[in-house]
């Protein structure tokens, strides 16, 4: 398993802190009841939480309960649940809020230990909350939280520690009646809700992750890596009712599937002026309804950055792969190296609004662009069976929407504005332009190549197949490098999702439809390594209208 940089930083800083302090106390829970009885022979989860909070004195414990504590001194830092001892803890009533102690400067860490049946389970039944975290100084590792209205409810209302992130690692949230993970930022000035997730699996609930931001000049900072959400009505829902502040939702290497809608962002108050940045990098977002449904407001910037995603919307009328923006809203949307399957609708209306679509593929849908202000540029995009409509309100757009080096295949372009669209060096295949579209220097042949890598999880000692599907007059070589945790996705026109400094070029220039089988040495040290395979396409006949270098979307593969 490859940990992201953020987690490595957190782990390292945690280790440094531990080294500087005297050893803290670990409470080993051995009561299958959530609360049990204080003074009995077993230590319950709630007792451990109260100890960690400092609301229960060590002296109140029986000797047998006290025997479950280990460590030299200090506060309860780790609450250990060993599934071999307590495979399931059934909540009798609501657990005490997890607060920690303000002066202690340590995380409250829930540490699940696998038993014969896997990670320990906290069964919340029909209770409102499985685990209430009221501090960002908490860490949950290797737990299954089953049932409850809400699996984990998080805010930092009772204990906020600067520059700390609440962390969920290897947590399963399942069968919640309403929400798997709820992140709250209540209506308090400057309220902060920082959280990081890694390897979090959420399934079979109404809403996978719900972020409710009511803050005044606060900050929500939720990031996830390797998060999987399945079988929910809504994968991620963000309700914005905040004033001021900068907020972030970032999901990397994550997957949402078998859901009604994948990501829904709503501006509850149209006058909300908080600035939200929504970053999605690497992953798949498949919805039966709409994959990305993002509302904007006029005073508050909504920045949406989609990179290297496979996005699929539903099949019914009204379903979208991507629907972003509200009339007159402030939208800054950048999508690169994405595949969108199903319609897309983009609406914006402030002078600093921006729509940038580069090296994307739009397939089997329709695109609607309605921008009354701001700017839009589309570079090296492919539209296949995806008719495009420039809506009438776009008439007021200062500069025409520029399609540069794009390919429109069976994708008519209808400009319903006063001709606020221009094609520059685009290829048209079976596509008709309305009369008011400027078509400058049309490209006579398609050239945007495609590349695939299979499988994405080859075992060491086997191989991975690298395949290109190129047009005549172009060729490609393969490069291989380690995956960048934070690629510079703002680079134009080429973005590298792998570390160039460590990358290698594979020998061989490939034409047309060809495959190279790359053997993977049977070396244990390779297991868990993620690599990015990137085809590098070049023109071979001196075509000056084509970019000298083009990067078809590559693929990450992780060696098992």
């Amino acid at each position, binding site marked *: 398993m490859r940990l992201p940089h953020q987690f490595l930083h957190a782990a390292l800083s945690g280790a440094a802190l531990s080294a500087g302090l005297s050893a803290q106390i670990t409470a080993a829970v051995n009561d299958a009841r959530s609360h049990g009885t204080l003074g009995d022979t077993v230590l319950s989860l709630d007792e451990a939480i109260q100890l960690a909070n400092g609301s229960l004195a060590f002296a109140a414990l029986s000797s047998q309960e006290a025997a479950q504590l280990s460590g030299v001194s200090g506060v309860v830092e780790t609450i250990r649940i060993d599934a071999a001892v307590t495979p399931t803890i059934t909540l009798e009533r609501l657990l005490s809020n997890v607060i920690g102690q303000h002066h202690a400067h340590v995380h409250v860490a829930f540490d699940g230990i696998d038993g014969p049946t896997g990670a320990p389970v906290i069964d919340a039944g029909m209770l409102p909350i499985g685990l209430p975290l009221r501090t960002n100084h908490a860490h949950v590792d290797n737990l299954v939280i089953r049932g409850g209205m809400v699996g984990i409810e998080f805010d930092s209302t009772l204990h906020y520690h600067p520059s700390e992130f609440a962390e969920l690692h290897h947590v399963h949230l399942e069968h919640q009646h309403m929400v798997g993970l709820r992140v709250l930022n209540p209506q308090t000035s400057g309220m902060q809700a920082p959280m990081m997730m890694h390897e979090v699996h959420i399934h079979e609930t109404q809403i996978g992750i719900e972020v409710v931001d009511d803050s005044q000049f606060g900050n929500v900072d939720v990031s996830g890596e390797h998060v999987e959400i399945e079988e929910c009505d809504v994968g991620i829902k963000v309700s914005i009712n905040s004033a001021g502040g900068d907020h972030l939702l970032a999901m990397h290497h994550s997957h949402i*599937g078998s859901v009604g809608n994948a990501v829904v962002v709503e501006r509850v108050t149209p006058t909300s002026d908080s600035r939200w940045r929504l970053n999605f990098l690497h992953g798949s977002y498949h919805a039966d309804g709409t994959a990305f449904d993002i509302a904007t407001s006029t005073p508050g910037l909504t920045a949406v950055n989609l990179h290297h995603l496979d996005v699929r919307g539903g*099949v019914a009328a009204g379903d979208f792969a991507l629907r972003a923006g509200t009339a007159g809203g402030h939208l800054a949307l950048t999508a690169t190296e994405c595949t969108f399957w199903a319609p897309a609708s983009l609406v914006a209306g402030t002078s600093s609004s921006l729509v940038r679509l580069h090296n994307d593929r739009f397939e089997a849908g329709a695109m609607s662009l309605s921008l009354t202000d701001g700017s839009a540029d589309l570079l090296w995009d492919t539209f296949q069976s*995806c008719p495009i409509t420039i809506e009438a309100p776009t008439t007021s757009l200062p500069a025409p929407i520029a399609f540069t080096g794009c390919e429109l295949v069976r994708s008519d372009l209808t400009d319903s504005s006063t001709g606020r669209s221009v094609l520059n060096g685009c290829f048209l295949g*079976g596509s008709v332009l309305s009369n008011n579209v400027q078509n400058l220097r049309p490209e006579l042949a*398609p050239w945007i190549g495609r590349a695939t890598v*299979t*499988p994405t999880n080859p075992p060491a000692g086997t191989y991975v197949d690298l395949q290109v599907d190129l047009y*005549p007059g172009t060729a490609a070589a393969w490069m291989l490098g380690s995956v960048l945790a934070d690629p510079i996705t703002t680079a134009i026109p080429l973005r590298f999702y792998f570390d160039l400094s460590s990358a290698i070029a594979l020998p061989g220039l490939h*034409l047309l*439809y060809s495959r190279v089988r790359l053997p993977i040495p049977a070396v244990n040290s390779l297991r868990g390594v993620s690599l990015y395979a990137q085809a590098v396409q070049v023109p071979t006949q001196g075509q000056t209208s084509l970019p000298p270098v083009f990067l078809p979307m590559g693929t990450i593969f992780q060696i098992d």
Partner: protein
Amino acid sequence: MRTLPFLLATTLAAGAVSAQNITASVNDARSHGTLGDASLSLDEAIQLANGTLQVGALSSQERAQLAGIGTLTRIEVRAATVATITLERELTPITGVPGGGADLVVAGIANAGSWPMLQAGSFNYAFALRTNRVEVRGFVLQGARVGIDADTTSNLTLGIYAIVADVSFAGQTEAGLRLRNPNDQAARRLLAKIRRCTLTSLPIGIDVRSDSDFGNIDLEGEWLEFNGCTTCVDIQSVGQGGRHQWQGFRSDMTGCDYCIRLHRTFGNDSEWLLRAVYGDYFARRTAFELEGSTTTGDVVFHHHQINVRGGLGSGDYVLWTKPAGARFDLHSSENVYEGNILIQSGRLSPRTWFNGVHFKNGNIAISVEGVRPELQWNTFTSAPITVLASSTQALNFVDSEFVRSPVTDLTRSGTTTISNCFLASSSTSANVIVQNPIPAQWVGHASVTPDDPARGGYVDLGVDLQPNTAALWWIGYSDPRPTTTNYPFRYYLNVASAVAVPTLFSGQATLRLQIPNQPYLKGVEFHAQPVVLPTAGQTYMPLVSLPRGGRFLVQ
């Protein structure tokens, strides 16, 4: 010295004579060389095999290149001895063993994985075959107008197929293979099987010319790789009457303008069977362009388990049958089509049959005047359908799915019915009858990768299923020649050998199947078939459906 008893010696000698013919080992890098010099050239060997050159005319060194007793039936070119033979002039056409009593094998023997090359420059051909009792194996043919030019004008033996195998064609200015029935006499026949050949960047990969009236061309290709050809298989039907066929199995045609084109001269009425089973057919213009006869001869087109892409222009097609009124017997199942389709099927057409086909990203226009079409278990995604005004036969789409695929019937009275289908974002014109629409999709998809796993490796069996359906995998030996006319299920595996993997999958799921590292598995081809069942008692879908699976050949 001990002597063998006379009886034993004669017995061994007789055995040797009956077991062996003569093998000529070419050791001259020049195609013709000089008769009587120190090395045996390819042309000398061909003349010896044809019987037009006597062994006695050879020098002793040349004669030393012959091994065995009897008839010369094998010519070997070892790459280790002569890596490249450069044609000085055209090689003598191969007419075969005199009297047609045996096959002649012309075999290249690879060295370090490389076949010997015939550098044919700008000559008319590299090899000319004038008999069907010949096999050409293991060469790289570079240059010439045509790589192999084949007919049976010198010698025809019924029931025997000429074989061209393990040959790479490149640099030909007209065609890699030209297979023809000349019109010098009627009823000429050509029978050939082509195996494991690559044809790269040629104007025409295989050029089929049927000029002889009432003739018969019978061609079968398997494991062929066409890449970058203008037209992969080009068929010109000129001679009247007769029945002909091109059957392609396990072959890929990619990076080409056209995959298979059948042209006719005006009034030509030959019957053609075309078959494509397993493979990728990716065209930049039109994948299958078939010209039918309006009089007596059908074009029978069987195509199954293939991926087909047409070009991007409005006049480019996945499948184009023409002209209006021509006779077609179209039989398609378990295919994926991406691109436009134009089907014109005339009054005498016996069949228009599409079953279990995924149509996507293209415009479909159809006119059927012949027997009522059978259209079942198909999916249409961004594939608008237009029933042309000329269509007279009732079209009934059954148990199919339409996603962003409107259906427009241009006939005056309306001939289209959509029965028991799922429609999403797909409007229908007012004259289309929609009966019993179903509430949800159910057609599943599956993938089998890679198709050439190594022993000790694995194959990934993936399903992508609709909600309320589940699948199990069924694995058996791949059927080399599946019975694709079966209805409603076609089995691409040998049912008697098949076993079920006892796990039920739903949603998107992948089963990684380990392949034992056993030598006996090398070269064995399996087929993995998902079997999909409804799990919520829904009656609008079949009790059992077989989405397209995939074959895999263990390396």
